[in-house]
């Protein structure tokens, strides 16, 4: 009995160690490759990195506000991922959520209604991707990317031709003052409630995934669709539910962005662009765990803000953040390699 418990603790501990090694190694590889590329392009690597990691964390409010939407798009990738579906449509789902929230907030001045409709809009797009996969056999990756581009242009059309701000050119109508997310006092100054809403939602996602029947259905279907079928679950249902949930989270990400950060969408789409794709990196670095995602969203927020500051001070392009994301994601695709490495080190130690 005691031995069994001890073994279980040891197994858990080993799990955590492996995960930690994976995360740290991936981030390190990312930073090293980033350094090599900065050096190749002739920038001062040490100065760039020190700016990223000092200026990136200077303004806690800004840091956490920027982390919130990518935390949501991270969840938008993770929930379907756990059910075995790749939702790379977080980008388009966030666009739709952002625009819907702006419109509802503008016309009703009701913040809760705005956020809810934003979530529903995202969920609708998620559902469309899932339905095409289940009933038409279209790969979700293809649908998602085609929808991302389509929605990009549709949102642009709507904010330039119908819902534009007549007083300020190149902007959509704004979220009215009385429908914006407020601040909460904290020891680090006042912080927008956006981040705390995000954390609560992430915790809810964790609860749903690990403590409810729905979460169980998603996890079983993701691990083995065949066993899910034997257990009487319909894996197709898992695909649809997980994409609806994922889409809803991306939609809320859009709502948090417009209700709690920049109250409009500009015609360069710079405010919404890339939030969904960054979410994929956030999800993977958070090891597809909602709690891990809270922390990894802050890490990516540092990279993004730090990248902007780096551009301001040294002229090095902020796309460094994309390079780092890319390399980190590639390194995270390699759990087998890390496990091999760990067992190699361990056997070496045993021999000695």
């Amino acid at each position: 009995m005691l031995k069994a418990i001890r073994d279980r603790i040891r197994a858990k501990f080993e799990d955590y160690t492996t995960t930690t090694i994976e995360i740290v190694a991936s981030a390190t590889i990312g930073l090293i490759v980033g350094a090599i590329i900065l050096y190749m392009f002739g920038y001062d690597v040490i100065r760039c990195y020190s700016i990223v990691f000092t200026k990136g964390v200077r303004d806690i409010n800004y840091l956490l506000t920027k982390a919130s939407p990518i935390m949501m798009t991270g969840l938008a990738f993770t929930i379907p991922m756990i059910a075995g579906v790749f939702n790379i449509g977080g980008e388009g789902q966030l666009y739709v959520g952002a625009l819907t929230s702006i419109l509802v907030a503008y016309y009703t001045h009701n913040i809760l209604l705005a956020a809810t409709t934003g979530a529903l809009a995202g969920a609708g797009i998620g559902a469309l991707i899932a339905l095409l996969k289940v009933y038409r056999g279209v790969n979700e990756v293809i649908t998602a990317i085609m929808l991302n581009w389509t929605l990009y242009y549709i949102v642009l059309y709507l904010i330039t031709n119908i819902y534009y701000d007549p007083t300020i050119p190149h902007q959509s109508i704004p979220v009215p003052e009385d429908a914006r997310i407020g601040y909460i006092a904290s020891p680090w100054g006042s912080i927008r409630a956006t981040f705390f809403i995000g954390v609560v939602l992430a915790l809810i996602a964790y609860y749903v995934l690990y403590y409810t029947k729905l979460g169980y259905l998603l996890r079983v279907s993701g691990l083995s669709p065949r066993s899910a079928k034997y257990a009487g679950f319909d894996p197709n249902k898992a695909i649809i539910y997980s994409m609806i949930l994922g889409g809803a989270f991306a939609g809320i990400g859009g709502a948090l962005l417009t209700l709690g950060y920049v109250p409009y969408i500009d015609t360069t789409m710079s405010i919404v662009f890339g939030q969904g794709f960054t979410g994929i990196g956030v999800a993977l670095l958070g090891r597809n765990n909602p709690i891990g995602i809270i922390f990894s969203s802050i890490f990516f927020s540092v990279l993004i803000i730090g990248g902007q500051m780096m551009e301001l001070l040294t002229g090095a392009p902020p796309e460094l953040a994309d390079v780092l994301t890319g390399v980190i994601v590639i390194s995270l695709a390699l759990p087998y390699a890390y496990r091999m490495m760990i067992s190699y080190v361990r056997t070496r130690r045993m021999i000695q």
Partner: protein
Amino acid sequence: MIEDILSILSNTLIYMVPILLASIGEIINERSGVVNIGLEGILTLAAFTATVLTFTTGNPCLGLIIGLLVGTASGILHGVISVYLRGDQIICGIGFNAFAYGISVMGLVTIWQQHGASPPVDTLPMITIAGRYSISPLTILALLIAVIAWYWLFKTSSGLKLRACGEDPHAAEAMGVNVLRTRFLATILGATLAGLGGAYLAVGWIGQFTRAIAAGRGFIALANVAFSNWNPILAILGSFIFGFFDVLSTYLQIKVQAIALTYPLKAIPYIGTLIVVATFIGRARMPKALGKPYIKE
């Protein structure tokens, strides 16, 4: 009217090339069991390097070659990770897309101090037909490659061995095929063709690098692979259809002359692709072991 139709058709032969090359490449590696969704990234990175080399040397042929080699290098990376290190192929592809976009735009900003597009560079000469319609020599090359790839995959024994690796790798191994090596080489070949497509995009057709130069073509090629049922000959038809949507979008933007409609018209290639794929894909049968790492017993 007939003029318009003819010019749309001849433009389609120019627009379809990157999609076709990337599709053939992807068909080859997917037939061997490796999926590479990093096509978009390969197109971008190859277009960027081709532009840089053409800009410095003034020779678009060199640009084409470097783009091809960048494709090869990307294929080696993806091959090592997905075949030998048994990494997750989709995640690796997603990461590569972000990486390739990031490094290309960093290069764009660093080399030319431009955030949107590079200065124009020389392009490969076009072949003029009937005095007014032009097609690229790469169009002919891509069509040839499609036919060769089809013949190789379906009519030769090495092609059969490659397909066996994607259908049932254990049976292939028992037959004496080196599954890991076959998959690795197929991945490299596939990515090389995508690299050629990317280089063509910049120095064979558009004549400069822009940050959104790939514009989803990598994913349209992925859609085309499923649409064509993993058959290079059918991929020609698919590329023609998807390339046609692209031409139609550009043509209507010029013809309609309504600024308000620019954005909806720009969405045509993506909506069109989605509709075609959702309508026709139903019966497609993908290679059985696609995307699953092969573990030797």
